[in-house]
């Protein structure tokens, strides 16, 4: 296997469900169905395409840090075509912030061995969008992030990053950390064959001891951020809704004028 690809995937509460916080102000994961963060499907897809372009001279490991259920996210990625999985699972991880999570991921990536790390642009729960940059910092390798197009050839990764004010072409030597956006290309659906094959693929379990991480460095206690309160947004007072009977635009203008927008 010449090219070792590690894809970071997160198990998140379904965004279309009723997401909320538990009493300790961490995300309540028991009451809402979890799934593979949709934005990480794009990362798995690009890993598969890079492997295909490398004439299969590559091996894809999917990696997650999360509770027991997070195996579901790994299964989904394996059924899409990844080769094997690593699950970092430890009771002491409950409530870890981005600094702790990135520490665990970095150690797990080093232990697994890698030439290329691929992540999503952001998770659909924390939505920080910084973890890939932090991984690059921790691993001491180039970050080639927020790519809408990516390719790997001859030990070099290239990609396009569409920023606020310009679109940039980027280039870095491997090893590197890449993150991809949802513009990078639709993710494939697992085939029936893929789903069956996934059941036989290896899923390794690691805990904090395996990674030489102290419990104090992670979890709620080890976090460097603290959530003091979480309040549900007050329900909006019901707005005015009118049916257009030919004057809808004028009525709307009247409303906007009343609000001093015109």
């Amino acid at each position, binding site marked *: 296997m010449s090219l070792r690809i590690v894809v970071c995937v997160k198990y998140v509460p379904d*965004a279309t469900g009723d997401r909320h916080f538990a009493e300790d102000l961490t995300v309540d994961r028991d009451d809402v169905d979890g799934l593979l963060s949709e934005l990480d499907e794009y990362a798995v897809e690009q890993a598969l395409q890079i492997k295909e372009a490398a004439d299969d001279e590559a091996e894809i490991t999917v990696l997650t840090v999360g509770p027991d259920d997070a195996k579901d996210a790994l299964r989904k990625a394996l059924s899409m075509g990844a080769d094997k999985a690593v699950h970092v699972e430890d009771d002491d991880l409950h409530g870890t912030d981005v600094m702790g999570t990135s520490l665990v991921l970095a150690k797990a990536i080093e232990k697994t061995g890698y030439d290329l790390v691929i992540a999503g642009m952001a998770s659909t729960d924390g939505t920080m969008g910084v973890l890939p940059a932090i991984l690059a910092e921790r691993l001491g390798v180039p970050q080639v992030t927020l790519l809408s197009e990516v390719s790997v050839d001859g030990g070099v990764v290239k990609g396009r990053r569409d920023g606020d004010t310009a679109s940039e072409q980027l280039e870095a030597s491997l090893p590197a950390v890449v993150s991809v956006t949802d513009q990078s290309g639709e993710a494939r659906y697992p085939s029936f064959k893929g789903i069956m094959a996934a059941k036989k693929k290896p899923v390794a379990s690691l805990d904090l001891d395996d990674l030489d991480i102290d419990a104090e460095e992670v979890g709620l206690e080890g976090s460097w951020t603290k959530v003091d309160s979480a309040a549900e947004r007050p329900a909006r007072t019901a707005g005015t809704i009118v049916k257009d009977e030919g004057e809808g635009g004028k009525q709307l203008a009247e409303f906007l004028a009343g609000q001093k927008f015109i």
Partner: protein
Amino acid sequence: MAEVLVYVDHVDGAVRKPTLELLTLARRIGEPVAVALGAGAEATAATLAEHGAVKVLTADAPEFADYLVVPKVDALQAAYDAVSPAAVLVPSSAEGKEIAARLAVRIKSGIITDAIDLESGDEGPVATQSVFAAAFTTKSRITNGTPVITVKPNSAPVEAAPAAGAVEALAVSFSEQATGTKVTARTPRESTGRPELTEAAIVVSGGRGVNGAENFAIIEALADSLGAAVGASRAAVDAGWYPHSNQVGQTGKSVSPQLYIASGISGAIQHRAGMQTSKTIVAVNKDAEAPIFDLVDYGVVGDLFEVVPQLTDEVKSRKG
């Protein structure tokens, strides 16, 4: 009084509005010291001084434009070492967040991203975040190191607060990682002459209901009558009707204007994630059951091809 580092987002010396908002927030927790990097860095000083910067640290080198992110992290770290600030504030752009995050790792600090408000607290700055597609509002703080906080556009008013704003050159030595990711080409985005989407006071957006690239002229005409920015749903972007840089939502821009007008947009959770904190929300949709109507202050159930042009005409005639 404690100093607070403020990272300056500017284009060739023109300071972008979110940085001026940061200066307002920085003054609540200390004295703002601005850090401006790259071409035109010194030209930012007058504007920054006018809005409260006591000092402006500047550096320019080819590395800032030729390589991704890390050279700017090296410079911000040099500023951090020079100042020993009480907090570091950075605008929540994609690049800003990455710069902030890498600095936080280096200085062993916790990080909070996408704050929508900031106040001074007994145990350091307290940040407000709007999470889970704006369904919850949280208050958080950083318990280790110097708080590093990124703040979303439109989170604070821009206020004049004249200060010295003395320019000082910042000495930066680049790390080994600085040249890791080369920028081999750069195509600037063409200006439309309309306000910047994330900074605009009014945003007018179109979705699948607009039904074609050519029909976006209807949305643009309304936007122009109101002096607004134009947004689009992902469905409209994926169909190729409008550029991705105008997408509003989870994987597009997140906007928080005074007024958001959605036409032909159903209001999917991922779209709401990017616009739900708008102060006033208005929608035009022919389906009375569309979820967007749950959010609106004012909604018109009707055909956008009828309602929107009529609204545009009415706005124009009222504005004279």
